[in-house]
């Protein structure tokens, strides 16, 4: 253990009210802590900011997945394992299920949460591109009340979010808006498993009679935040699916993403691979993600 523990505090309230009161405290400085799959790594490496943390782990109000006519509402503390086990998510939101399956191993999937994956605000996070494709909305809560915001636009810059210090994500809402759309999720890392993404891709397209009527395209690891590619979506809307669409897609994509050289990859590689993933998705229906069959595991 490299961290100097006395520089930290971790309280674990059991109710949402108690947690929100701590976060709203006049003396400030309390920060949320969920499954610990990132913050405990930072702690051990001596990089976690000293201070006071509020564990959200014991708060039942932040758990659970509810299904309504319009969509699902996923508690922010829902783990990747919870996602993998849920029949409605498996049937209607296969990209979120795929992202959960590709995040770490079982032990990480048992502790990592969707809310944490969002609020940790890593541009390389694996579930956010899938959430963007499904037009996710976030319920954000504080002692001041609850507000609902589109997830698209929630990340304002590198680790900058539309989230005040006293607010936490309460739930993630996904409407049933992609039924019948072609969908794909691809994560490109150093290895096929257990790797942080060099490029992460999620997309859905409403393709009928050879024409792309609408699309949602999102990437991770190619910009300061996960990004939804509005320029590319606009450029593709109404186009025939034929080989000519590839150049249009690649060109438009340069306006949406801004990859950099870093420890995991290079800007050039990421731009090329991002274009390849998109073109492959548009031209090869075989790569699409089907609803995930339910299993007992």
């Amino acid at each position, binding site marked *: 253990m490299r961290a100097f523990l006395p520089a930290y505090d*971790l309280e674990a309230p059991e109710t949402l009210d108690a947690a929100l009161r701590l976060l709203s405290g006049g003396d400030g400085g309390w920060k949320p802590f969920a499954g*610990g799959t990132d913050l405990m790594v930072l*702690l051990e490496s001596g990089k976690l900011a000293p201070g006071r943390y509020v564990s959200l782990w014991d708060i039942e109000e932040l758990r659970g997945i509810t299904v309504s006519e319009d969509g699902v509402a996923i508690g922010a503390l829902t783990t990747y394992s919870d996602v993998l086990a849920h029949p409605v998510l498996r049937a209607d939101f296969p990209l979120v299920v795929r992202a959960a399956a590709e995040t770490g191993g*079982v*032990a990480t999937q048992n502790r990592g949460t969707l809310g944490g994956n969002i609020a940790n605000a890593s541009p390389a996070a694996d579930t956010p591109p899938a959430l963007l494709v499904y037009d996710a909305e976030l319920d954000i809560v504080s002692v001041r009340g609850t507000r609902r915001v589109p997830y698209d636009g929630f990340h304002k810059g590198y680790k900058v979010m539309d989230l005040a210090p006293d607010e936490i994500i309460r739930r993630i809402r996904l409407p049933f808006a992609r039924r019948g759309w072609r969908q794909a999720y691809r994560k490109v890392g150093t290895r096929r498993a257990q790797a942080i993404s060099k490029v992460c891709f999620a997309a859905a397209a409403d393709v009928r009679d050879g024409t792309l009527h609408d699309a949602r395209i999102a990437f991770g690891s190619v910009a300061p935040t996960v990004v939804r590619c509005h320029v590319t979506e606009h450029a593709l809307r109404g186009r025939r699916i034929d080989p000519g669409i590839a150049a249009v897609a690649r060109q438009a994509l340069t306006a949406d993403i801004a990859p950099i050289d870093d420890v995991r990859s290079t800007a050039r590689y990421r731009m090329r691979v991002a274009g390849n993933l998109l073109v492959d998705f548009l031209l090869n229906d075989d790569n699409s993600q089907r609803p995930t069959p339910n299993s007992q595991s």
Partner: protein
Amino acid sequence: MADLTVTCRINGQAATLRGHSMARLLDVLRRDAHLTGTKEGCGEGECGACSVLLDGRLVNSCLVPLVHANGAEIVTIEGVASADRLHAVQEAFVACGGAQCGICTPGMVLAAVSLLARTPRPTEDETRAALAGNLCRCTGYMRIFAAVVEACGRTAEPS
């Protein structure tokens, strides 16, 4: 209140753990509960050497703060065998030679125990996914994989 006392059950016995609320469960188990079968590998949730079961679920104990153990049921490698005989997974690891230096073995066994508790007849893909978070630098995995297949009473399918 950074220091706290946690009551939990470890390997079926009531236990009291004391320490900083953010202390790693791994350290508390090894130093204070003297359960040194749980190993530290990477200390960053990548290798699975510190795997334990927390309320029946596989976790990396290096990433669990002590406060999250409050009221929990914890199983470490010391609690897998019963008094007079090894668990079927442990017997299979012995029979198949599924261990070499031994550092990954407690975590591997717990990952396999966790898999078989939920999925008694896993597919090959399910077995691979269940062990994916546990790294071994000696065996090349084949004997470990064979041990898990053996443990669920199946013969290895050609891959």
